[in-house]
């Protein structure tokens, strides 16, 4: 490790992560609007353009959006090296990802090939750019901590996801038929959801679950073996799935997928257990979101297992769709929202703190609002409840498609609107307190 380059003061400007965090909930609202516009038929098949659009609004516009911002913010803390030219890099990545996601999803909805072609270029560039920055840091760091290992594996999974996505998009964009469309799509989904996002969440959990609630650390065995095992199982599954005829090997494929399910369930159970041993017993929105996420993860495994036992269930056209819904809306989205409620107030507080250290003399320091004043617990909890109710309704409607879908869409729209409100309100508070700090420093040094 080159210590002359190691500085731990690498907080990038607030705008670097915030542009991503503030864009994400808007994509959530778009997804809810799409749900509303499509009505009960949306869940009739997982191959409908509406479903593909909905998936990408959430995976690119919400999930990847937040992950991009979080990485640009926290990579320095994790590996001790700052992202170069943070403003330029974040502006470019954010524009490419935002316009690319909009272009891809509107291309799907309107079956406009030119939009999809444009999206492939934009999204390709944004992910390649993002992966180069992250990849460089992950190679450079000498650390073999469990979180870093998980992130390296997640990086590989992302690379596979992106390549498969580009192949699929090219097929769609140029209108030729891919003979293995279904297989490629399932691989793209598997590597994206289980590999990239799933492994990343586990790696992040190793760090933040013990930190936020003061719990014991994850068991050393789990930290050492779980993510490599998931990666290898996914790789084996992909090999069998791609190379062999499905019918002869369906039990192996199901078995391997259920093994992945067991591995993720182990993670969920250990996390719930650690959280029950937490020293901080106070109510906490982030904690509740994580618990919802872990239960959502367990439910998706139970549904997976049920599909293995009762083929009547897994043969229905919407079974895989139900699995996807549980995994995305029941596991990934709650965890990410929970994280936002910790990251956003802390970063705002940190920037005020740094600002006042830079412009005010120590004796004149003013009292800045604390984290619970930046996003009040009450508002975070309203949002959590609305999301939770939306999720329950969504699960019901995914199992028994009905007109309830309209209620679900409205409810989700409200959940994402509240999230938007909570995040934008915090930004507004940031600006107004920041102005006060500047005004105060002018009073202190009227000449400057």
């Amino acid at each position, binding site marked *: 490790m080159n*210590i002359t380059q190691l500085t731990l003061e690498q907080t990038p400007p607030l705008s670097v992560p915030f542009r991503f965090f503030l864009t994400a909930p808007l994509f959530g609202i778009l997804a809810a609007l799409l749900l509303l516009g499509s009505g009960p038929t949306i869940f009739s098949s997982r191959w409908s353009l509406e479903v593909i659009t909905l998936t990408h609004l959430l995976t690119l516009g919400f999930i990847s959006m937040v992950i991009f911002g979080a990485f640009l913010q926290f990579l320095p*803390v994790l590996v001790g090296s700052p992202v170069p030219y943070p403003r330029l890099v974040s502006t470019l990545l954010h524009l490419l990802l935002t316009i690319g996601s909009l272009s891809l999803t509107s291309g799907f909805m309107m079956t406009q090939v030119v939009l999809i072609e444009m999206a492939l270029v934009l999204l390709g560039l944004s992910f390649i750019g993002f992966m180069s920055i992250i990849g460089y840091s992950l190679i450079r760091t000498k650390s073999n901590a469990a979180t870093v290992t998980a992130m390296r594996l997640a990086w590989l999974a992302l690379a596979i996801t992106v390549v498969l996505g580009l192949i699929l998009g090219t097929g769609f964009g140029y209108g030729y038929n891919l003979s293995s469309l279904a297989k490629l799509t399932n691989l793209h989904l598997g590597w994206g959801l289980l590999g990239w996002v799933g492994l990343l969440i586990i790696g992040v959990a190793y760090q933040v679950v013990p930190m*936020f609630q003061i719990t014991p650390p994850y068991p050393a065995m789990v930290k050492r073996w779980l993510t490599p095992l998931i990666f290898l199982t996914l790789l084996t599954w992909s090999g069998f799935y791609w190379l062999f005829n499905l019918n002869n090997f369906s039990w192996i494929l199901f078995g391997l997928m259920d093994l992945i399910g067991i591995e993720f369930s182990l993670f969920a159970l250990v996390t719930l257990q650690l959280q029950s041993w937490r020293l901080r017993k106070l109510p906490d929105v982030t904690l509740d979101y994580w618990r919802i996420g872990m239960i959502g993860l367990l439910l998706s495994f139970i549904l997976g297992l049920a599909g293995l036992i009762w083929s009547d269930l897994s043969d229905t056209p919407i079974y895989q769709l139900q699995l996807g819904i549980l995994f995305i809306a029941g596991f990934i989205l709650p965890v990410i929202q929970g994280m936002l409620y910790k990251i956003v107030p802390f970063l705002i507080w940190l920037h005020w703190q740094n600002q006042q250290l830079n412009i005010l003399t120590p004796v004149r320091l003013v009292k800045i609002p604390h984290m619970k004043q930046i996003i009040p617990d009450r508002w975070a909890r309203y949002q959590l409840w609305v999301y939770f109710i939306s999720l329950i309704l969504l699960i019901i409607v995914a199992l028994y498609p009905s007109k309830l879908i309209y209620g679900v869409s409205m409810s989700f729209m409200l959940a994402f609107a509240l999230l938007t409100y909570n995040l934008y309100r915090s930004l507004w508070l940031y600006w107004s307190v920041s102005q006060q700090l500047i005004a105060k420093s002018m009073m202190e040094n009227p000449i400057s």
Partner: protein
Amino acid sequence: METITTLLSQQHHDCDKLFAQAEESVATTQWECASVDFDRFRAAMEQHFIREEQILFPQVENHMGHTEGPTAVMRMEHQQMRQIFTEMAACIAHLDQEQYLGLAETLLILMQQHNAKEEQILYPMSDNLLNHQLPSLLEQLHQLGNNKA
């Protein structure tokens, strides 16, 4: 084998426990306990800071030949935490639960990201850098604790 990483990381965990205890007492409005618990937490943190600022950081800075860089940032974050301690102590004096809990949340995240940087970057680097003088350094770190206790 004991290293800088194991010794000082353990202290972080000990302080975490004291933090949670104080927060619990405030949350249940047991103000007398809260005052005792908070003082214990603050004293443990202060002792840990002093060990770093007076023993570990100067050695690291000696080796690097300057005082800018990681240790400067760590010192600054210690100051930030000390400022919050002062505000938290005032909350206990004024029995202001809401403000205390908000500050506690803020302190926790500040403290945890600070600890993570130390445990994952600074301490392993120090173990590496100060390898040859590790036994005497560890003894000093222990001794300072004993004198203060």
